[in-house]
């Protein structure tokens, strides 16, 4: 996926919204910037399918050799799919964070949760300021 077409949360998750059968489903991952900051990844605890999440709620944990970080859901909804193979192939997350490294798909139940997200340009600007 082209990162320039994605939405970003200030906690470094990306969102791609697709509409299927009248329902909006958000595919969620973490940004290249976040993956690089984490360094060597060793473990991911994926969310459970069927779980309800609120925007900005932690629903996944990523572990590197030095730290454990939360992944926060950028949207409010229900987890409908998770990227199971990721658990055994964390290099996919490092190599292709915007593609095969997606983490979960969440059926959006409250679209207002999308309002607080940034576009790529705003996100890049935020990262540059943080650095």
């Amino acid at each position, binding site marked *: 996926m082209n990162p320039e077409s994605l939405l970003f949360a200030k906690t470094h998750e990306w969102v791609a919204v697709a509409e299927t059968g009248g329902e909006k489903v958000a595919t969620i991952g973490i940004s290249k910037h976040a993956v690089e900051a984490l360094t060597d990844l*060793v*473990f991911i*605890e994926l969310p*459970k399918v069927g779980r309800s999440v609120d925007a900005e709620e932690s629903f996944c*944990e990523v*572990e*590197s*050799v*030095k*730290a*454990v970080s939360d992944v926060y859901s950028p949207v409010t909804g229900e987890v409908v799919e998770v990227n199971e193979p990721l658990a055994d192939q964390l290099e996919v997350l490092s190599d292709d964070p915007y593609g095969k490294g997606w983490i979960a798909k969440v059926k959006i139940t409250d679209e207002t949760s999308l309002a607080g997200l940034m576009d790529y340009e705003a996100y890049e600007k935020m990262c540059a300021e943080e650095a």
Partner: protein
Amino acid sequence: MPFTYNTEEDVAAMLQAIGVASIEELLEQVPADFRLQRTLDLPQAMGEMELDRHMRELAGKNVGAASGAVSYLGGGTYDHFIPAVVDTIASRGEFYTSYTPYQAEVAQGNLQAMFEYQTLITRLTGLDVSNCSLYDGASAAAEAVMMALASGKGRTRVVLPASVHPEYRQTITTYVSCLDAEVVTVAAPNGVVDLDELRSVVNDQTACVVLQQPNFFGCVEDADEATRITHAAGALMIAAFDPISLGLMKRPGDWVGVGEGADIAVCEGQSLGTPMQYGGPFLGILACRESLVRRMPGRIVGQTTDRRGKRCFVLTMQTREQHIRRDKATSNVCSNQALFALRATVYLSLLGPEGLKETAHLCLQKSRYLAERLVETDRFELAFAAPTFKEFVLRDRQNKIDDLIACGLANDILAGLPLGQFDPELDDCLLVCVTEKRTREELDRFVEVLTQNAAHPNGGNRAKSPHFEPASIA
């Protein structure tokens, strides 16, 4: 750190350096109400010779296995034989004085010893991974329950049979008291857990069941059936085992079938080469299935290769631990009992599988011999019909437990653990433990002394019967 005390000149120089006139002035930040307005209530200082005599006098008042008393005390602490090699190796300075020796560059020997310990424990329990020890058996059981709650997807029920050591149950209850968890106790009316009641309380909200095998009363539980019930509800089975018993009994990981048993196994490892010493410090053993390893508390040593491709050892998976995982860590344990783990390693490697089997056989045979001899006397009966391993509950038909204990003490015998303190219904019962160390002469004498029905020895310089604060189990 050298122990050197400050002379008056030292104190004056330090006070002058920081610009205060006196200790009083130094402490004036502390409100007077909070300060001890008198000198410490300590006796006069003694010279070394006097001190040596004083300490020996105090030590002489102790009654215990170390002072030559014959011990039938069990209930979590056991008088097993310790081969001399254990002390010889464990008292080497490299092991004995090292402080947190985990830096891979300088502590390969220590790390390898801990790795060997973990290997032995996984083989002993039939589980995949072991940490390199916790504080003691009771806290290991509580840590295992915390693991189950953390990995239980919101399950909150913790099921504890009444046949699990009451102090383990208290410890678990304390650990989970501020968590979203509910402790449910299942009765053990015949010395073993009531399986029907277990079936009725283990539900889809149950995180784990803790089963002690052999249990607090020395009885052998139907661990296979208890495990089936637990697993059928999707809960974890936590085994609290006796390491010596594994010379004879199924490994916790193999209950039901090989690899289908307990998910976590914990025990008090004191039996493995550590003396009793008034209840600690001891050795908490914890092993589990690979799938639970990220919830496992404490240190884990792993094997890897260095830059040159040579085998070496390091602390691994530290992201589980509180110094990295912070508030998300399962446990706040940040130490271990390396010296006792080392003793267990030396002990187990000395005995080997055959030695452990033989030790377990001797415990079984000698304890059965004593139980049968006592029952023959008519004064005593066994409280429970279930098979036992090295401990059994002895009921005194005359209900004179205090007399029996006093009578034992007068003859340098520690007759057993009075159970009334844990359960009023067992007020006329003693928990009697027989290890491989007991000789036939000692066992026969025990029967003789207990059946003499001696009057209460009055006074004397012997300690009173062992008394423990009654345990209140929530």
